[in-house]
């Protein structure tokens, strides 16, 4: 009975965090958010070089053959540093395409960082397969909420009936419209299909289901990282900011508000670890725990981001103070691939309630 990361996972966490800490200080993140694009090719390459997109891919397909818990550890670090990269999407798409014969080159490009993946799942009214409306062989319609759509080379598109298809960037009949995004560290785009050809991917339904579960766990982990960062900033600020002649962190009113955030943030990490572990080892629990974890941690993360800003007072509400980056990161995690209420409804149904 060992409920913790392995030494290898801890080492990976430390390496990823150390790399991100070097390149993404709070002011650097803010500078990226202020720029026309937060795309940072050097950072993306550095994360690729660490092997993150290869984590889930079997060794026989050129990957590292590691588990989702390991990817979740990497994803939490992305959230903690608000890393503006599609590295986790590449990892998940590489895993997915490793199930399809003849896609070894694409898998290799996703692992090697020459290709960038984006999931196009939001069929207007929702993110789940029953809301997918696009039908092949040529697609007509729109998909919103496509993370890093402006940079992606490989679009994994949800199709009517619950299947997945592949459309490559630049395909005739596909227009990518970048959108003004709340989370500028992961901008979203709208895809407009006007007769673009789609390659249906021959995947088993359970593989598609597992992809969705893994996506939920990855965003739950990202949210835990963002929540911890926001909470940490609020606690540190409370130790230095003075009002009424004392540091504000000595006032019980504020102290208790911060604790009420912390007691929800801290236990969220073991929940995500367990959800990831279910995907890895306890299949009967995986779908439900992924839904519960995504709902719970993203809810907590938004609450924490809001509370952290409130605890800062006016400075927290300015653009020049970096805290808003993590609130927005959490807001993105919460909404993309389904809001907490949807996942909770699903989890209740899965329990047979």
């Amino acid at each position, binding site marked *: 009975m*060992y409920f913790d990361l392995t030494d290898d996972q801890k080492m990976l966490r430390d390496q990823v965090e150390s790399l991100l800490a070097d390149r993404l200080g709070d002011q650097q993140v803010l500078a990226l958010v202020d720029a026309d694009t937060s795309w940072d090719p050097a950072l993306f390459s550095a994360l690729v070089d660490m092997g993150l997109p290869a984590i889930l891919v079997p060794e026989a397909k050129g990957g590292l053959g590691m588990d989702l818990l390991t990817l979740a550890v990497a994803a939490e670090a992305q959230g903690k540093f608000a890393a503006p990269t599609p590295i986790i999407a590449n990892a998940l798409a590489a895993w997915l395409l490793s199930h399809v014969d003849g896609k070894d080159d694409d898998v290799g490009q996703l692992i090697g960082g020459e290709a960038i993946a984006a999931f196009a799942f939001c069929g207007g009214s929702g993110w789940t397969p029953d809301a997918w409306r696009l039908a092949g062989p040529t697609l007509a319609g729109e998909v919103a909420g496509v993370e890093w759509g402006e940079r992606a080379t490989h679009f994994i598109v949800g199709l009517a009936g619950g299947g997945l298809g592949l459309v490559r960037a630049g395909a005739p009949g596909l227009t990518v419209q970048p959108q003004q995004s709340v989370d500028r560290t992961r901008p979203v785009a709208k895809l407009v299909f006007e007769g673009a050809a789609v390659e249906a991917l021959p995947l088993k339904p359970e593989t598609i289901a597992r992809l969705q579960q893994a996506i939920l766990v990855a965003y739950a982990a990202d949210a835990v990282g963002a929540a911890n960062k926001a909470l940490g900033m609020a606690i540190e600020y409370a130790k230095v900011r003075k009002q009424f002649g004392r540091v504000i962190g000595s006032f019980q009113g504020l102290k208790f508000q911060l604790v009420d955030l*912390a007691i929800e943030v801290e236990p969220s990490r073991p*929940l995500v670890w367990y959800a990831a572990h279910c995907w890895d080892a306890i299949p009967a629990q995986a779908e439900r725990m992924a839904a519960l974890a995504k709902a719970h941690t993203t809810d907590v993360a938004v609450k924490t981001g809001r509370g952290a800003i409130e605890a800062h007072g006016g400075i927290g509400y300015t653009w020049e103070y970096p805290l808003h980056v993590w609130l927005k990161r959490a807001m993105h995690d919460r909404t993309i691939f389904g809001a907490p209420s949807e996942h909770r409804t699903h989890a209740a149904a899965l329990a047979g309630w």
Partner: protein
Amino acid sequence: MDLSYTPEYKAYRADLRAFLEREWDPQKARDRQSGEAYVSEFRRKATEKGYLYRAVPKRYGGSEQPADVLQVQIIQEAFARARAPMEVVGNGMLIVVPTLLEVGAEWQKEMFVEKTVLGEYRWAQGYSEPGSGSDLASIKTRAELDGDEWVINGQKIWTTMAHTATHMFALCRTEPDAPKHAGISYMLMDFKQPGITIRPIKQISGAQEFSETFLDNARTPKDWIVGERGKGWAVSKVNLKHERNNVGSATRTVGEFEKLVTLAKRTMLNGKPAIEDPSIRMRLVTLEGYMQAHLWSGYYQQTLASRGESAGPLGMMNKLNMSNMGQTIAGIATDVLGPTALLAPSWSGGPMGDERWLNQIFGSIAMAIAGGTSNIQRGVIAERGYDLPREQLD
């Protein structure tokens, strides 16, 4: 991550399950004549095997097992599954024994520990006073030396199980001129003596689990002080640590949650099972997120503890989170119960239906008070967990 047990632990669990299968018969324990003796004998056997009283040395009636949180977890799960009794419940095992083992004199351990383990000595707690709740160090109960005895005067409150107690452990002011925290001694005394009278306190639930205790020239021998005279505050901290550990387990919350789900499945609300009500479902599943986070955080803490590592602030949050979830459970249960929530439970031991949930509904308030209020917990987490500066106190 590996949630399975190693072959050694699996063998340990198999042995334990076989032991319970062989030695524990709930039917015999329920027997009016011989049940109590049967339970005592079962506990003796379980102690002999090393399942109970693991932290208590053999010479004081314990099983003296090396610390092993995984074994403890296996034992708790197996006993719960078999509905077998674990250690004698009460302040004695939770507080007095660990405190004596840590700081008591040798003769005190010999005199008190084994009898407490066996349930012969039952301990009342004498900490809080009417004027001293969260600010415990402000206690006023005084002990003055008269020859070879202390003479004690004052009043204690929230004394649990006072009607069955044989002894009391109490904080008393022995050095009236010393500063607040430095003047307190941790004293033991006979509870059945002319200088001690009790008055039961009727709680909001109608039950009477607590009493007020009046000390009018109560007496205790000069050397019935645990630790040094005037150092009782530090001794009581040993004590509070054990109390917090005790309430930190996820078992209670998980159990209440499961009962609540069962209640919602079999209780009709507006013509269909309450669990099918969208609002009830949403509240239950939202609560489950907190519950699962708390549960797995508990397993993580156990893994850390098994390696002797600190869980940091996370380890300080269990009681507050349990209290919060208890309140949420109470809110959902109230709505599921419908008109039954208008009924008070029987406190005379009569048969009860679902109105027994009122005990949880009121008890969840008590949980946010007893053993350090939720606000005291918040202060501990903020100051010790996150190094936020202390509020400026007197």
